[in-house]
């Protein structure tokens, strides 16, 4: 019985992906890629990949070992490429570039209902709910002038006044690929103090106006990117 190079390559591919999933769990970076609804795939994936890698390794000795052709080797290389990319790059989340490319109709099913908008502390999920349905928008209009406390990143529209910017946050239901943005226009902020893509916390009064939502800022402060940068169900 001899080691089969092809089997060992398969075990290596499985082990590399298992390592990536364990790394995501240990570093807390899962939130940068998946929503809380789907983050269970990481521990499950890590466990199954580890068992599969060990199983393949244990069974990699054969009476008829197969060599690894260049085509097979590069195929395994392609599978390993995303692992290398995630491990080599610093943590990041979707930015204003994505906001300019994606749908901002935040109508995802996990946004707040009109009843939820009508009572309690207002959240960006409530704003998304208001942009989704006329009933929820009516409930938000009824609360015009209420105090809000929102965290998101800065996006700027060309031609906007110096003391204005758009506060953006993404909602994801499974992974970053299905992200939708929710946006509020912040007025009365300190001119020129905050740069594009900077994470800020805004407190102020909310005023729904037509199909947009405005926050008249009482304070705007720079904050670190939250541990969970995306809003989840």
């Amino acid at each position, binding site marked *: 019985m001899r080691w089969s190079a092809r089997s060992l390559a398969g075990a290596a591919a499985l082990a590399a992906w298992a390592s990536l999933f364990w790394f995501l769990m240990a570093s807390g970076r899962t939130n940068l890629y998946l929503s809380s609804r789907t983050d269970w795939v990481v521990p499950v994936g890590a466990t199954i990949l580890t068992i599969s890698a060990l199983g393949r390794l244990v069974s990699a000795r054969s009476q008829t070992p197969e060599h690894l052709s260049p085509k097979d080797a590069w195929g395994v290389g392609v599978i390993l490429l995303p692992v290398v990319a995630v491990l080599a*790059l610093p943590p990041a989340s979707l930015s204003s*570039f994505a906001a300019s490319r994606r749908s901002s109709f935040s109508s995802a099913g996990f946004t707040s209902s009109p009843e939820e908008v009508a009572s309690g502390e207002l959240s960006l999920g409530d704003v998304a709910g208001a942009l989704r349905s006329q009933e929820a928008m009516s409930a938000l209009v009824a609360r015009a002038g209420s105090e809000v406390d929102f965290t998101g990143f800065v996006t700027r529209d060309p031609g906007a006044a110096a003391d204005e910017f758009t506060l953006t946050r993404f909602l994801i*239901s499974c992974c970053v690929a299905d992200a939708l943005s929710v946006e509020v226009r912040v007025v009365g902020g300190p001119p020129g103090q905050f740069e594009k893509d900077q994470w800020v916390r805004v407190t102020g009064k909310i005023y729904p106006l037509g199909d947009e939502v405005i926050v008249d800022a009482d304070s705007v402060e720079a904050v670190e990117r939250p541990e969970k940068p995306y809003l989840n169900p």
Partner: protein
Amino acid sequence: MVDIAQPLPQRNASLRPVAGVVLGLTAIGALLHLLEPGRIAAAQNFLLVFSSLLIEAVPFVLLGALVSAVIEVFVPVTVFEKLAGLPRPLQLPASALAGMAFPVCECGSVPVARRLASKGLAPSAAITFMLAAPILNPIVIASTVIAYRGRESLWAMVLGRSALGLVAAVAVGWVIGSRSSGEMLRVRRGDAVAHDHEHGSRSAAFFGHLSSDFVFMGRYLVLGAAVAAALQTFVPQTVIGSVAGAPVVSLLAMMGLAFLLSLCSESDAFVAASFVQFGVGAQLAFLVFGPMVDTKLGFLYSATFSKGFFRVVVVTVAAVTLVGALWIEVLVG
């Protein structure tokens, strides 16, 4: 025991490509770390979408490979011979409905379908199952209900999606007809493992199939995710907003968008529901077409099935989706 070790040149033949791959990956890792593509917004967006698509899909591909390996090693051929004995008019709808019991998204159903066909199930039935499972499984139905709750179109979307998904999957199976697995499946080197367990242990055969399917499907999944991430990065979604009011064009635009985005069928309803400027028909077209035909599936299908299969799926699913979604829009829109 007879030792039939490989001659030295074959071992060297294995080492050389491994060294090349290790060097290549190390260089890429070092470059990514030093150049910090995060400073370039488009590059960062591409890498985030690319990585997240794969992190979500890889466990499902592995689960698909696991089910496929269980079928190959532990399910006797006689089971499939019995199923193959059913009359064809029954076989296709039964295969589509069997998808309800397989709650994984589209990436996981491809290796399972391939294995079912290679074990003796009619390829038309296996493919019908593969196409129906990502739409008819209970998780996808539940996510569609959640995404559309509170809307008048809720039941039109949920029932319409399931019905059109069923019809489209059966239609593809019907078009494939009585073609054999030899005609439908691409031969690949890993198939040699199929007979190994006649000589070795079942567990060795199980892990052999599992690993072989994972490595085979994985590389095409990576390529598909790269193309989908590039399209998401460089093609703004607002481009299609201008055709929202056009009756047939809006449906085609949403089908095209579903193809480009390559979303998981368990999350696509949330995105479809966000396109409020599009009618019921166009949103339905997005939800039926996407789980059967998208960028990453194009790579997986082309690698798994014979030449021409992808064309058959695209044309048939597009035709059923277009006609069905238009009818539903007329009835409830």
